[in-house]
């Protein structure tokens, strides 16, 4: 069973009176344990594709299947539960909650799993240790560097042991050295834990890390490499 599958998916947006096609008839399958990059210039539809796979948005046409479940058949609460249990997110701007410490940020997604406090705290501590940030657990995001914030975001994405992690331009706001380190960390976690990663980028330098590259242009999927 694929971690995620898109079948002839299109996504149109209304921009004022104009209809914009962000994705046009995209079909793909990502298998468990894959480390896949979605490449393409700005506006090519990378974020839209990740939003659809991440059940954050609905396609205008076509079918999206995540971990064997057709997302069209799920209501909003069921989609939320699917995200909580199966999907982790890493954002370009880290999107950490500013008023929570690094540890609390990592612990936050476990809130939706209903785990006992001690258990969720222990899991969050372990996840932070795995990204090498055990010593800044009590720091707030504004006390961390960009690289550290993205590591916290990675720990947060992985703490729920998801089948799929979606990273939207995870290195775009980082210098190249830190970006490399973040990609190495993601790849390491992919290898160790077998978690499927799909990340988007428009930076050709980071594509070398991917096992497979899906190229998007004008909302269409070009040949995979």
């Amino acid at each position, binding site marked *: 069973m694929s971690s995620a599958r898109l079948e002839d998916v299109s996504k149109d947006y209304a921009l004022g009176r104009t209809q914009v096609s962000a994705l046009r008839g995209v079909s793909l399958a990502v298998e468990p344990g894959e480390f896949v990059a979605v490449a393409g210039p700005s506006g090519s539809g990378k974020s839209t594709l990740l939003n659809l796979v991440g059940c954050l948005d609905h396609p205008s046409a076509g079918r999206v299947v995540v971990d064997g479940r057709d997302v069209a058949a799920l209501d*909003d609460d069921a989609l939320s539960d699917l*995200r*909580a249990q199966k999907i982790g997110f890493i954002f370009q701007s880290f*999107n950490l*909650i500013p*008023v929570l410490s690094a540890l609390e940020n990592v612990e936050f*997604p476990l809130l939706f799993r209903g785990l006992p406090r001690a258990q969720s705290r222990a899991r969050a501590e372990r996840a932070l240790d795995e990204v090498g940030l055990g010593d800044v657990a009590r720091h707030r995001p504004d006390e961390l560097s960009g690289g550290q914030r993205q590591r916290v975001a990675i720990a947060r994405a992985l703490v729920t042991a998801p089948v799929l992690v979606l990273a939207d331009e995870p290195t775009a706001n980082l210098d190249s050295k830190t970006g490399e380190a973040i990609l190495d960390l993601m790849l390491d976690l992919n290898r160790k834990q077998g978690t499927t990663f799909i990340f988007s980028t428009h930076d050709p330098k980071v594509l070398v890390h991917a096992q497979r590259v899906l190229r998007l242009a004008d909302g269409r999927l070009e040949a995979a490499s």
Partner: protein
Amino acid sequence: MRLLLTLAARNLIRRRRRTLLTASALGFGVAILCLSRAWTAAMATAVVEPAKDGTIGHLQVYRTDAADDEGGEISFVQPHNGYRLIAGPRALVARLLADEPRLAAGLARLSIGALLSAGDESMEVLLLGVDPATRAAVYPAVGVIEGRHFAPGENGLLVNRGVARRLGLKPGDDVVALANAVDGRLTGAKLKVTGTWTVRGLEAYEWGACFVDLAAVQELLDAPDQASVLILRQRDARADAAPVARALNDRFRREGSKLRAFTWEEMGGPFIGGMLVTRFISGILDLVMVVIVAAGVTNTALMSVFERTREIGTVRAMGARRGRVLALFLVEALLLSLLGAAIGTGLGAGLIATFGRVGIPAFSEAQRYSYGGDALYPVLDLPGLFSVAGLMIVICVLAALGPALMAARLRPAEALRHV
């Protein structure tokens, strides 16, 4: 829940100045509401309760056509010489008391205007004919400050201090009362002053009214075994009189009797009217205050939603259901209102305690009438304070419901795109 509370509390701390401003406005509103309640409660204690206990009772029963020969509108303060009277009033009171457990006591009263003369001095007075045996139970605040109460069957007269002063009366003096009988004939009676009465709590006021034995007034009016009004007192003096009035009126309708019960609030009167006007104005001010505070909370919550749209998208991406986002913003509103309520309760208690010591001054004669003196002294009532605080908390959470629903309905992808 712990993490939700932490998040909500820290979000409030994050916008420290805004939180303090909103909580202070809320606190100010709570304090004003507390003071307003204490103010009207003090008026009720100072004036209304003595007026109920000393002059008007809790409920009054008249014939529905009582004033048909006098313009139609029943007057609760004017003499009832031309009124259509209730026959067999004592027996009727006894029946009502037996059948309505919420009533504790009742009496038949016949109020007529008469000319009272003592020596060369005369004045128009209101003679309140009552049964002396039941007077104390219905009018517990009527106190005899000089002399004694007249006995049943005695042509005795309890004069108010104002009448005593004007006519120079003292216990033991004889007076003559002249009135018109129901058929217009001039009638008269010789009465002996047995004492002077006043209403406890309203000692500053003087009335041109005298209590007389009911039989004496019936004789003056030539209306044996009749009364113009039945005065009833509830067992629970603080209970709402309206339900009992409704029950009595239902009963009168069922029986086909031409009677109607009025509550003390319907009867108004100068004291109660003043208090009701004040309560009404105070209620409007309370409403305005509540609307302003609620608008402030709504505005704060809305700003919070706009500022944190991307954060809402992140939380939703992590798997938060809409209900969880709703709860997050409602918990924030709850914490904010708890803070405001705490500030307001403290401030309100301080204001009430201060005015309770120095008094709220009366600036006009009408206010003096409503306050029962030159100043009103509100009393600190903790359950009252907490009920105001609780009400404000509920209102604030409800005021935040709109923005919270807006946050919960945000589509995750759109929220994440928000800049």
